[in-house]
């Protein structure tokens, strides 16, 4: 693909990703409401919310908190751009991690009981999902012949048949990143909270809007990584189905599960998630897959 195309797709990604992300959030809330026997807000409610938040009076605890809110959004957008430019997958992940890390750092920079608790728990979520995401890049690179995302497009075959173990592990990681039950320990949307809003307790107004938009980008980026598993050939549209299917499955899992403890999450993520990818790498190295 030519450089012009790549830059064009990066621009489109930056514009379209928050629209898709916001819409998915709206559908998420609607479906969740229906599953809980409520009517729920309109599908474009997240956009109303963000616009309203942007117009509110800022309330700040200190400069560090603000810097991390901006950096959270800016770094995740950077990760999306690097993804659209089909750069090295590990590099995309590292930039994403730096962005995601800004959230707990912002929370920890305020002396507030709930935000401190949420920030520390967010670090444990990080400990649970970072190894899975990093490891997941390995079998993809082993199959497609390198870490640049461009290689996956040149590889010419869908990855899913050989890498379904990795796919399952990535799904677990996705649920942890998005703080969906049973992994919503650092702050969740359900009304079973002992930590208020956890990691984002102390954010409000326009700064909360920045974080919300950042989450939209983050979700689209992670779903796009799942989409990479079937991105070539005449059935390329399956990648979208796969991404949306995973997202929908996650919603159901979210709604039928209760929240569990962080130590359980860590054991599950390392025990099941990491093991699945490790087996996948092992099988590829042995030539079985």
């Amino acid at each position, binding site marked *: 693909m030519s450089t012009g195309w790549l830059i064009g797709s990066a621009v489109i990604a930056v514009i379209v990703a928050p629209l898709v992300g916001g819409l998915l959030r709206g559908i998420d809330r609607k479906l969740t409401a229906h599953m809980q026997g409520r009517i729920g807000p309109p599908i474009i409610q997240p956009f109303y919310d963000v616009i309203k938040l942007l117009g509110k*009076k800022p*309330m*700040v*605890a*200190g*400069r*560090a908190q*603000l*810097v991390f*809110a*901006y950096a959270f959004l*800016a*770094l995740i957008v*950077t990760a999306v751009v*690097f993804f659209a430019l089909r*750069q*090295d997958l*590990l*590099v995309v992940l*590292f*930039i994403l*991690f*730096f962005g995601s*890390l800004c959230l*707990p*750092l912002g929370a*920890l*920079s*305020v*002396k*507030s*009981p*709930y*935000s*401190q608790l949420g*920030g*520390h728990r967010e*670090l*444990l979520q*990080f*400990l649970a999902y*970072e*190894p899975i995401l*990093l*490891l997941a*890049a*390995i079998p993809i*690179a*082993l199959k497609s012949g*390198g*870490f*640049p995302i461009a290689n996956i497009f040149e590889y010419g075959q869908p990855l899913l048949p050989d890498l379904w173990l990795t796919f399952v592990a990535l799904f677990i990681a996705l649920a942890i990143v998005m703080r969906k039950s049973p992994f919503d320990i650092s702050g969740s949307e359900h009304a079973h909270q002992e930590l*208020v809003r956890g990691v984002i*307790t*102390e954010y409000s107004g326009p700064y909360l809007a920045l974080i919300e938009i950042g989450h939209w980008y983050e979700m689209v980026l992670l779903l796009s990584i799942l989409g990479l598993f079937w991105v070539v050939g005449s059935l390329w549209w399956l990648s979208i189905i796969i991404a949306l299917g995973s997202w929908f499955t996650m919603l159901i899992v979210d709604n039928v599960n209760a929240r569990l403890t962080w130590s359980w999450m860590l054991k599950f993520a*390392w025990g099941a998630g*990491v093991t699945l990818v*490790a087996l996948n*790498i092992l099988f590829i*190295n042995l030539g079985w897959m």
Partner: protein
Amino acid sequence: MIDSLLGLSVFLPIVTGFICLGIKNHKARGGIVFLTAVVLITSSIFLLRQGSFPIGYSPAPAWDWIILVLNYVILAYFLFMAIKDFAQRGISRHNVLTIALTLAAGIPLAIFEFSQAPHTPLEVVPTLYIDHLSVIMCLIISIIGSLIAVYAIRYMKDHEEHRMHLGELKETTQPRFFFFMLIFLGAMNGLVFANNLIWLAFFWEGTTLACYGLIRHDETPIAITNAFRALWMCLIGSVGFSLAIMFLWNSSLNTISLSAVIESGAPVLLLPIALLCLAGLTKAAQVPFQSWLLGAMVAPTPVSALLHSSTMVNAGVYLVLRIAPAFQGTHLSTLIAIYGGAVFLITAILAISQSEGKKVLAYSTIGNLGLIILCAGINTSLAIAVGIMLLIFHAISKGLLFLCAGAIEHHIWSRNIEDMEGAATKLPVLTGITITAMFSMLVAPFGVLITKWGAMEAATGIGVWSTLVLVLLMLGSGATTVFWAKWIGRFLCHSPMPGRAKREPFIPLYHGILLILIGCAVVFSVLIAAVYNGVIAPGLTEAGYNAASAFTTSTWFLKSSIGIFAAWPIFIIIALALLIPSLAVRAKPEESYASYMCGENVEIGTDEFVAVADERTQLKTGGFYIENMLGEGNLNRFVVPIGIVLLVILFVLVVI
């Protein structure tokens, strides 16, 4: 030219060290340390510009005699100190092991030198061998080491004033301190140039001596105990050295020239090679020897910065990287990679439970050295390139972090992370530098992260065993993030407050040196391609690796055969993402608010809340340490046996 540069690098600091021993005046001694630092930095840069490496150099034969004698003098000193300790404090594991291991290191060496060797002293041509790898080490020692020594001028003054104030100290002991610091710099420079294994063993012993002397500097009972622990653990490495020298001479190779051993590439020599690796692992405080480095944290902080993070422990990984070509493609190599990965993961997890700042830094040091060992074990051109890069970037960032910890300690008089809560509002400049330094260990686009990226890609697809290495690497990477981020969080944690914090006074020998080092970390990370082309690629070629198959650097990106890191664009984007908001954003006083406490806040601007019976209660927050699960007491029961078992497997496999 080369002989005078070597003389300045090795000999001059030893001479000025002895001069310091006799100077009681603080300013005069500081002047000598400063001048030594200037000369060392200049001579190391001139050495780099010598161009055509490798260069061999053999000083006059009389030096072989001097080295031979001095080696036994040092060993005799160890013996003397252990016996003295035995007489004063009674029998202990530490002094008995010191005596036993000194004898175990000295006797084989004496048997070799005086009965097996055809003539005494045994000469090797060239005695000293200078290539890019040793020059990289020399630059690290001479530049970072000298800056640390200059920082110590101010640090030790504050340190002694504080101790005298507490009544722990009557008269200054700084002459002895700077004596050990400076002779250490000389011994380190000698170590990296030595090609004759007897010379190498001597300089190795010299660094052990300085390490012992500096750890026990404060002469508290705990300092003395920990100094002996460091001594006997490092002496295990010396025993390895002595045995390796014997084995190598009595093998088919019949040489004690390090370069000849590496070039021979004979896999039959695996046992002596493994013994040299053992020496490297003890010096680099790898599991199960990690306890000496943690104990060494009782020493004044410049010692930790110089010996225990940026230079001496690097000698261990330097040796393993140096001899890596000799075990390429063997089982030893595979096991060393797995071992390094295990150390990386274990130390990252142990670091989470530490509440003493310096211990977190110590564990992180051991872990990063483990990562370098892992790279040496993977042993491809890419992996070795990454290992050398990490050696450089880790030395800068970790030396810097120890200096930061020391400067903060001298403002708050505590090493506990919990006491650093809200330091960002009291010491904004120092904490700003510290947090940047922590970021330089942790996130893209800094050098250490680039090497982590490189290590992950280097470990991909090189054998079935690489699966295990990758899992260890990724899990360790996750745990690393946790302990750094929660420490940064403690620095930043403060009650909502308007406006900027007031800057603390600028202390040139603290802030100035920290700024130089953070500048180095940033500039070298942006220009990593230039660093690679300038010193690492030629070093790889000299060691027999293929520099072109490691990285290519078109448009100053780092590009391997399987990945690409657009170093400077990423740096610019991330710098903008962080700098624009931190410079442009202002928190207005009227936007300030009280943190959420369920509406029970006393008033805005305090961190008090209304508790039971309307009592005003102060809010307290704290970090997460998960001691009951991840504490040393809990994990060391497994960690030490794992380390020992891995080493035993390593040696059993080598012998078979």
